[in-house]
């Protein structure tokens, strides 16, 4: 299954949906099924970055170099 192949390395759900050209909702449902069978692990993102001035300054500096 293509989705499982794409999940060999860690990927965001949005990246998977764009790569496979499938709607986000469809990918979510497929991933939930795969998780039920123990085939994938779903991680929650690190949300603290939004309130971390150091990380945001790092982002601003990196964007300036684009």
């Amino acid at each position, binding site marked *: 299954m293509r989705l*499982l192949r794409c*999940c*060999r*390395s*860690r*990927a*965001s*759900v*949005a*990246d*998977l*949906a*764009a*790569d496979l*050209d*499938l*709607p*986000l*909702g*469809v990918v979510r449902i497929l*991933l939930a099924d*795969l998780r039920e069978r123990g*085939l*994938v*692990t*779903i*991680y*929650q*993102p*690190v*949300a*603290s*970055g*939004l*309130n971390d*001035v150091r*990380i*945001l*300054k*790092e*982002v*601003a500096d*990196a*964007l*300036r170099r*684009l």
Partner: protein
Amino acid sequence: MPYADSDPTGDRSPIPVAIKILVAGGFGVGKTTLVSAVSEVRPLRTEEEMSEPSSLVDQLEGVERKTTTTVAMDFGRISISDDLVVYLFGTPGQKRFWFMWDELAYGALGAVVMADTRRLADCFPSIDYFERNGMPFVVAVNCFDDARRYPSETMRSALNLTDDVPLLLCDARQRSSSRDVLVALVEHAVARLSSGQHVTPAR
């Protein structure tokens, strides 16, 4: 943004910090141009349940049982390092798409609202939305070659912007210009953070 992987025993590197930025604004205002100027852009489809106003616009004859509509977004990704990634979502600004914004806005750093001086009103719903949920946003006026230029004070008052919302002029075709808009947004978020306003997930 959740991450998935199928190798529970392998890669133990930290989950990357994902910074999500929304790019909103009316049809044809340059959202795709801006996102593609700074990142590799791919279409991202989402099946959404149709709201009432949307079902008046999307012709339903012959498909009366269809209750979802496909919305395509511009999806861009800027990898800053192995553990830091910026995601850009170019989202349709019309009020009839608000129902999908709540989910998109969840956990987002902030938004760029794009405006075109020839159709300024097109960005009102986007500004309304971000003002309501308290998300940091900047307004980027895309300077189309044939559009009249106005002083920023005039545009501020036309948009009824409070003083703390940055307003920038940009040329979305230029990478440096689009980049500056994103930098302005991140700096705006930092300034708000430093003044004690935390970025809270909008829900």
